[in-house]
Every structure is written in C-alpha cells, then in structure tokens.
C-alpha cells in the first residue's frame, strides 16, 4: 500500500525529471521561463531551502516566500545574462542564494553580525528587484496610478504583450502604436515621479530581501 501511495506522490516529480533529465535542459527551460522548469526547480530545491529556513527559525510562510524569492532571482539573473550555464545544476545556485538571503536577513533583522555572508552568489551589492518587499512596494505605487496608466504599464511589462497585439486586440483606447507608446511613456514618467516623491525606492531594504 505504501509503495502505491508513494508512486502516486512521486509521479508528478518523475514527470518533471523526465522532461528535464539534466542540468542543461533545466537551465534551457528556465531561460525560456517555462512553468514546468520552474516547478521542477522548486521540487528540487524546496526541501533544502526549507531546511535552511528552519535552521534560522523562519516561519513556514516566510520560507515559502524565500523559495519564491530565490527562484525569481535566478530567473532574473538568467534573463540579464548574469547567470550562464557552466555545467552546474541551477538548483545549487538557488540554494546558495537562499543561504545568503537568510544570513542577510539574520544580520539585518536579528542584529546578528556574526553570520558571514557567502560572496559566491554575488548578492551583497546588487539590488534585488524580485524580492517580496520590492515587488509589494511597486504594486502599491502602481495602485496610485490612474487605471488607464496602470493598464498600459501592465500590458507592456507584466503581460509582456507586443504593442501591435495590444492595438489589434483593442485592449486599450488607443488605435495606433505611436499613440500607445506616447501615453505609456507619460505613464512611466508619472510612476517614476510618484516613486521619487514618496521616496518609496530610496530605502535599500526593499531591494535587499
């Protein structure tokens, strides 16, 4: 009976393992930001990250966010070209990010300066725009925009739709790509102005994780 149940429980995991049998195929899947690749990476790393979080006595909810932070940061680095495949499993890098983030959290919030940071993950001076704090703050700023502006920005940067597709599908009130770009540029300026005026992005904590 236990073997049957275990079979059902590991069936999904085995499916991912067959799609991404090695580190290279997983990296390629992550580069394309495939959902299955993200899930496979999660299944590979969540246990280790969970243990790290528990070592530092983080609540389960925070550990879940930590896993999400780390995977997102890896995707960001792959997208920016800062992480390239060198034959290592991307999961190893995620676990290293998690270790560093937790140590940083401990240093910043628990005043424990004895926790050494691991420089290998190169996180110390690089802003993390993918962290929960950073993304939550950005969403608050977006909420201050007019709904039309918010929609224009969402279509371009969150839904990643091409301008022509937005026009063709009549997702906005604008009928030409140029008009769409002009208005979106103004909306972006408004968003930057709001961020500057409110000082929302002046704190390092929102990008530090």
């Amino acid at each position, binding site marked *: 009976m236990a073997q049957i*149940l275990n079979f059902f429980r590991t069936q999904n995991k085995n499916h991912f393992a067959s799609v991404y049998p090695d580190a290279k195929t997983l990296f390629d899947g992550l580069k394309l930001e495939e959902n299955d690749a*993200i899930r496979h990476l999660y299944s590979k790393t969540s246990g280790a990250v969970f243990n790290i979080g528990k070592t530092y006595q983080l609540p389960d909810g925070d550990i879940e966010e930590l896993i999400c932070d780390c995977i997102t940061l890896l995707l960001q680095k792959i*997208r920016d070209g800062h992480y390239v495949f060198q034959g290592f499993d991307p999961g190893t890098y995620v676990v290293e990010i998690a270790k560093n983030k937790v140590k940083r959290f401990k240093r910043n919030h628990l005043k424990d300066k004895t926790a050494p940071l691991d420089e290998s993950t190169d996180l110390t001076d690089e802003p993390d725009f993918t962290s929960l704090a950073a993304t939550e703050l950005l969403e608050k700023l977006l909420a201050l925009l007019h709904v039309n502006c918010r929609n224009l920005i969402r279509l371009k*940067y969150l839904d990643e739709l091409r301008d022509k597709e937005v026009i063709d599908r009549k997702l906005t009130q604008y009928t030409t790509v140029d008009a769409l770009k*002009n208005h979106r540029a103004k909306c*972006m300026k408004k968003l930057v102005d709001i961020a500057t005026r409110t000082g929302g992005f002046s704190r390092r904590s929102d990008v530090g994780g």
Partner: protein
Amino acid sequence: MEHFYVQIESYLLGELNGRELEAFENALRQDAALARAVEQHHTMQQRLRGLHLRKKVSAALQETENQTRRIPFRLWRVELAAAFVLLAIASWLFIDQRSKSARNQALVQAQQEIIATTDTQPVAKTPLPEEGLQQNPGNISPKEAPGAENLKRYKTLAQTFYVAPTTDFVRSANEMPAEQTRLQAAIKAFDQKKYRLAADLLNNDASLGADDSGRFLRAHARFNSGRFAAAAADFNLLENSFQYKYEARWNGLLCRIAQGKAQDRETQALLDAMASDADFPFQEQAIALSKRL
C-alpha cells in the same frame, strides 16, 4: 527634454537606430536631467520585470501547490476507501475469530480443568469392567475374541444401526449462554462432532447433572468415539430411564455387538426380544440387524 522623454522607452528597449539613436545619445551626454530620467526609467523597467518574474514564479508554484493538494485529495479518497475495506475485513475476521473463540473457550477451559482435576484428585468414575477393551485387545478371552475382520464388521454394523440422540439438548447447544457448565460445553462439543472431547468433559460423574441427559450424552459420545464398553455401561444405567430407555437398550445392544459379542447368548436373547416386541420403537431395526448378523 519632454521630446526625448518619449523616446526613453524606445532607447532602453533598443528600438532606436540611425539618426534617432545618435541624436538621443548626444542629448543624453549633454542633458544631466535626461540621463537621470533614463536611469530612473531603466530602474523602473527592471522593477516591473522583477514584478513580472515574481508573479510568473508565484503562479507556477501556486499551480504546483494546487496539484500537490489535489493529488493528496484523490489519495485521501483512495486511502479512505482502502481503510474502509481493510476495516471491514478486519472487523469480519475479528467477529469470526471472536465467535470461534467464544465457542472454543469454554471447551478449552473445561478441558484444562479436567486435566487439572485429573492431576490433582481422583476422579469418581462409573465402574467400567470392560474399559480399555478397544485399546487392549489382549484382554479379551480367546473364546470371545473374534477375528479382526469380524470385529470390524460388527463395529460397522453397530454404527450402521446406531440411533443418534434425538432430544433437544443438542439442538439447544447453539443457544447456550457465554458462561457454560461442563455439561453445556460437552453438548457443544458433541454438536461439533468432537465426541472424544465431549466424553472427556463428562468423564466425571459429578458433571453429568441431576437428570439422565448428561449420562445419555456421555454414552453417545463414548459410542461415537469408539469407546463401546464405556458407552455400554452408561446405556445399561439408562435402561430404566423413563426418557431414554429405548435408545439406551438399543444402543447398549449395539455396543455389545461392536465389542464383538454379537454371537453371545445374552446378545442374541436381547436382540430376539427386541425384534419380537411390537411396542419396541426399534423393532424393525432389530429384525434387520438380526438378519445381518
């Protein structure tokens, strides 16, 4: 500045080229405010992409979470069904075992009591002058001792004409209470065709009870377990029983035959009397047996 600001996004997205790109880069070098705006715009783009990535990862992981929740839910139902089936089987086995145990418990207990009683105190037994005849044929006198084939044939005849107890004490065995007396345990054993056990349970005369039922049962138990001499002794004592006298006379005669005394004068006289007695309930059997002998 305002004019160039519209082009910031195109510049950052790499959509400018030729003269437009050159003009923009010239302005960028000369206009510090524009350079700062480009930097702010670039940072905001990075933040938006970060938000996009995080939402994408969250959605993927949420889907994973939903799947892992759905799978256990399906498994939960499977587990519940499996547990129910196992519980049903276990319950059935338990009830079956318990009923068997309840049936056998009194028998085993009584048997153990017998062993203990036998070991510690002498048992008051009915005198059985021919006890052990079956186990020790050497005790039979040469005149009485028939050949082995004859003895076997007589036993078969006796068993063929044997009249089993018809009274209701065997039928009532299934309605016995949990706490059984030794007699009740013997009835139960007899009902289960454990004749030797039934006979052993009633080995002590004190366990036979106040009426003749106990002795009658023991006689049948002894007969069916091949202890014909002992059975004959019991049947003889029951020949004056109001309730069992006919069966006792008939089966007592069969016990004599089974012991090889078919050609005895006494046996022949008894058999003739039964065959000629019209009021004897087993007259027909007596006639048939007489012919067979």
